[in-house]
């Protein structure tokens, strides 16, 4: 009796602790958001979104930066998505056993731990110099794609693992080939979770500064890129640049740019959460 009372007490205590921890997380988030919004919202207007960078904080805008960020997003998605999903598929559905698979698995986990700056150095050597892409959007997107590839592969594998064996069996038993099964059953069924992983990976890519600076993404670009081979800048570089200026007005600009960046990642997460929920409502095993 005393024992079970103690257990109940512990249970309650943990519940309170759980609420407390969750609360801490949310409060910290709240502090960040409020802080940034208070500091940046005054600067955030139409002009700010449509102006080119400038030495005068009050005239500077983020047009090229957010357009560049969107470009990078789209290109990175186009490159990393098929590659990452394909690699995840290969590992989970095709080459699942043996030394080679173990090696690939460790290798990918390892890549996830390589600091982003190293990817920058790699991108500079391979894409910018060897492949002669220069400091272009394409070089940037390729570099970031490599950076987030491990995350996509890992999440894809987890998502595919969750598709029940019985669905695959059902498909094979009807004479479907491996690829038909993957394409018609496994991918649609795991699509929601794969997507979440991809979008979380992309929000990492959207926030990266260092590797892009290394490959030569620029700080001052007075034109919006019109092809993947154009030079570019992105929001994090603009933010990074502004936070290191002496004038307080630039810090305000940085905060406003952070809001813009957060809005983009919010939208991404929103899409992910929406698709995830829709998918989960549709499919109940």
């Amino acid at each position, binding site marked *: 009796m005393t024992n079970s009372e103690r257990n109940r007490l512990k249970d309650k205590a943990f519940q309170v602790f759980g609420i407390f921890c969750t609360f801490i997380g949310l409060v910290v988030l709240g502090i960040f958001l409020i802080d940034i919004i208070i500091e940046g919202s005054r600067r955030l207007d139409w002009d700010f979104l449509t102006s080119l960078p400038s030495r005068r904080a009050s005239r500077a805008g983020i047009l090229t930066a957010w357009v560049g960020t969107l470009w990078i997003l789209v290109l990175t998605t186009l490159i990393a998505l098929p590659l990452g999903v394909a690699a995840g598929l290969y590992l989970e559905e095709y080459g699942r056993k043996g030394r080679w698979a173990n090696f690939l698995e460790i290798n990918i986990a390892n890549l996830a731990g390589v600091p982003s700056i190293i990817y920058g150095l790699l991108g500079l050597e391979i894409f910018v110099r060897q492949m002669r892409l220069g400091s272009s959007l394409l070089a940037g997107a390729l570099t970031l794609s490599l950076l987030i590839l491990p995350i996509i592969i890992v999440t894809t594998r987890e998502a595919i693992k969750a598709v029940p064996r019985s669905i*695959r069996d*059902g498909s094979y*038993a*009807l*004479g479907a080939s491996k690829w038909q099964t993957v394409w018609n059953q496994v991918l649609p069924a795991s699509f929601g979770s794969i997507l979440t992983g991809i979008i979380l990976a992309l929000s990492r890519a959207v926030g990266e500064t260092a590797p892009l600076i290394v490959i030569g993404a620029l700080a001052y670009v007075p034109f919006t890129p019109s092809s993947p081979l154009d030079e570019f800048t992105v929001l994090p570089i603009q933010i990074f640049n502004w936070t290191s200026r002496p004038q307080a007005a630039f810090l305000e600009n940085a905060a406003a740019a952070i809001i813009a960046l957060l809005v983009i990642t919010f939208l991404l997460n929103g899409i992910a959460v929406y698709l995830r929920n829709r998918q989960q409502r*549709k499919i109940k095993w």
Partner: protein
Amino acid sequence: MSKKNDKLEALDLNAYYGDFHALKGINIVMEEKAVTAFIGPSGCGKSTFLRTFNRMNDYIDGFRVDGQILLDGRDIYQKDVRVDELRKEVGMVFQKPNPFPKSIFENVVYGLKIQGIKKKSVLEEAAEQSLRHAALWEEVKDKLDKSALALSGGQQQRLCIARALAISPSVLLMDEPASALDPISTAKIEELIYDLKNDYTIVIVTHNMQQAGRVSDHTAFFYMGELVEYNKTKTMFTSPKEERTQNYITGRFG
């Protein structure tokens, strides 16, 4: 009764999961358009054996067979046999209903679609016919575009049968198709098997002696990877030759 052809045969079949010897020197011949029931205690190899007929075990790591499985006299474990073609010939229904998370219609025509058939009218025609055949048409004809996951367990199982029928196999393998179902659904599926045997060669695994007795023409009793006895169902249930069979089927349980 005219002598029927031999549809499926196993010759000296051995199967292994890694080191584990799951099937030991099985020899069996099954007639076409008849129902054969596999019975035996859990783990004796019924499912393993059943799945060698459409090579569903191919995907299991470390699984291998030796000996032969003949379908219409042709060894299906030959190198040049294409498993996808084989499985169009040998359909399968699983223990747990496993509809795809798609609409009822999409489920039924899946097998046709992957064969490249796209014409709407052909698909619709085939869907209706298979669903009728599986005694499900009346219940679902107004909601073909609804998710198959919204059906009851028994309906889902019949949908899986319809799905298997749609690609017109000649053999239908069923691994405990009614074990997850309530008696009403079970009855419907047993009736269905009874009807289907006019057109199909059916092999069914079951734990339920009564069921085996009701639906099958022949029964095979397996024990620890061996085929202990194989005979006409009636003979088997009334006068089994082997003591082990006797012990098993006269258990007081059902």
